[in-house]
């Protein structure tokens, strides 16, 4: 707690005390704004480069830096200066505001995702439920944006996105339940601390598989990218987005990709635990980038699945497996098989 300065001489120490406070550093620099902006910009370049390599192309090259790594900056400048085209009879307010809400919703979960023992903005007791709450608002924003575009392709894409995200949200959070049972807590810092001896991917392997498939569907990644199926729907629910609006949506989608990767890292891959030659946050970021790679690679390999297959897999297979996992975990925990790892 710092007192508000009364004389000019106190002003500099006051500013320094604010800038060096835990709240400021975590919000502005590390798990917060600067880190998120840099990583999501890096991810756009990384995805293009990775897919190009898979398909025996070269990918971004000319924008400067090694391998054209400055491409995101070039893209950003280009998109900001492009004209924003408002479709005929589109809803102006919603069309311009929803992309900003999407960025907000993509950033909000990082408030509770820990990148290290103390590298977390808010150490909430209900951290996991907080992420559940914020991600569950995504689909309704997408359908509202699709409706506001006043065009057929976005509308169909938005409806598909809604179907898909509602269907896969339930198995996703039920499979996260087995982690909660193993750790005995909804606090993400506690969950990672419990993984000091054994990562939860070992006792909850099936849950990990279900969770991973579900986040692929939540992120609308191939083979589940029906909402933005290019050959049929141009670009799905953001077909009409252009210029800065497109950039906002793009940023929100990559933030969500990074958020889900970091969440998988914290839930199943031991968070910041690793050999101590690297500091904790570096381990978390590295593991999250590995998970992001695993999410991106199928885009270069697999074809898209059909809508009915998608819905059937979600509601009949994944939901059943996720529920079975909860029982398996309860049995594992109560049988004492995991006792030597302190679970």
């Amino acid at each position, binding site marked *: *707690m*710092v007192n508000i300065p009364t004389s000019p001489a106190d002003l500099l120490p006051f500013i320094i*005390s*604010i800038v*060096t*406070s*835990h*709240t*400021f550093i975590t919000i502005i620099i590390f798990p917060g704004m600067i880190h998120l902006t840099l990583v999501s910009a890096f991810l756009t370049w990384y995805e293009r480069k990775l897919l190009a390599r898979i398909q025996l192309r070269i990918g971004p090259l000319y924008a400067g830096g090694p391998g054209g790594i400055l491409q995101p900056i070039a893209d950003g400048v280009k998109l900001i200066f492009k004209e924003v085209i408002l479709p005929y009879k589109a*809803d102006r307010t*919603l069309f311009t505001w929803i992309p900003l809400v999407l960025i907000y919703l993509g950033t909000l979960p990082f408030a509770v995702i820990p990148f290290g023992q103390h590298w977390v903005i808010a150490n*909430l*007791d*209900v951290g996991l*439920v*907080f992420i*559940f*709450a*914020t991600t*569950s*608002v995504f*689909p*309704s924003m997408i*359908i*509202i944006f699709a*409706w*506001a575009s006043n065009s057929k392709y976005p*509308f169909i894409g938005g*409806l598909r996105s*809604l179907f898909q995200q*509602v269907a896969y949200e339930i198995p996703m959070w039920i499979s996260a339940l087995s982690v909660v049972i193993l750790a*005995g*807590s*909804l606090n993400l810092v506690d969950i990672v601390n419990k993984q000091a001896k054994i990562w939860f991917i070992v006792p909850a392997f099936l849950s990990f598989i279900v969770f991973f498939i579900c986040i692929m569907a939540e992120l609308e990644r191939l083979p589940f990218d029906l909402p933005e199926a290019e050959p049929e729907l141009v670009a799905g629910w953001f077909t009409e987005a252009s210029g800065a609006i497109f950039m906002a949506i793009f940023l929100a989608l990559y933030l969500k990709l990074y958020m889900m990767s970091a969440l998988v890292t914290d839930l199943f891959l031991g968070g910041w635990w690793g050999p101590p030659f690297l500091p904790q946050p570096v381990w978390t970021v590295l593991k999250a980038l590995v998970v992001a790679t695993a999410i991106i690679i199928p885009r270069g390999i697999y074809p898209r699945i059909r809508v009915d297959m998608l819905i059937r897999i979600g509601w009949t297979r994944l939901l059943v497996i996720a529920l079975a996992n909860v029982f398996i975990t309860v049995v594992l925990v109560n049988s004492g098989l995991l006792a030597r790892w302190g679970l």
Partner: protein
Amino acid sequence: MVEVALTIPPDVVFIAFATVTLLAAILALQAKELIYGAIALGASFAGIAGMFILLDAPYLAMLQIAIYVGAVVVLILFTIMLVRREEGEEVTEQRERGEGAAGLWIAGLLAVAIAGVAALAGPNLPSTPPGNALPVSQLGPALVTQYPVPLLILAFLLSAALLGAMMLAKVER
């Protein structure tokens, strides 16, 4: 490391949440375009979640957002999308005579009822002082040990609703 904390009096926060909830609720009823109504309804639900946070029930607040803003609003949006009005069709509103008076009557009755309950039972209501609320990890044991019967009744109710929905969906086919 120095902590900088801004303290806002809880009354101000309460009034802000209450204003958001009430204004959004009014907007939800009055909006000409149904989509705006649905968004306002979501904002109203979010305001109620804020109330839960003020009452030291963060778990309930998060579930309020997940279930009401996340799921119920999606259902309403689905319905709106299915019954889009035709191109060029005007929105007509049927106003009954004495609508406003009826509204005022109901609001007055509610206010009197709430004031009466508060005056009669207010001092006797069980209250948990701030900071003494049950931690999240003890919610489950409390549900199973202290309130098993309501829990079972709720479980039966939800299963019945689920089975009913499945029956209805089957008849349609």
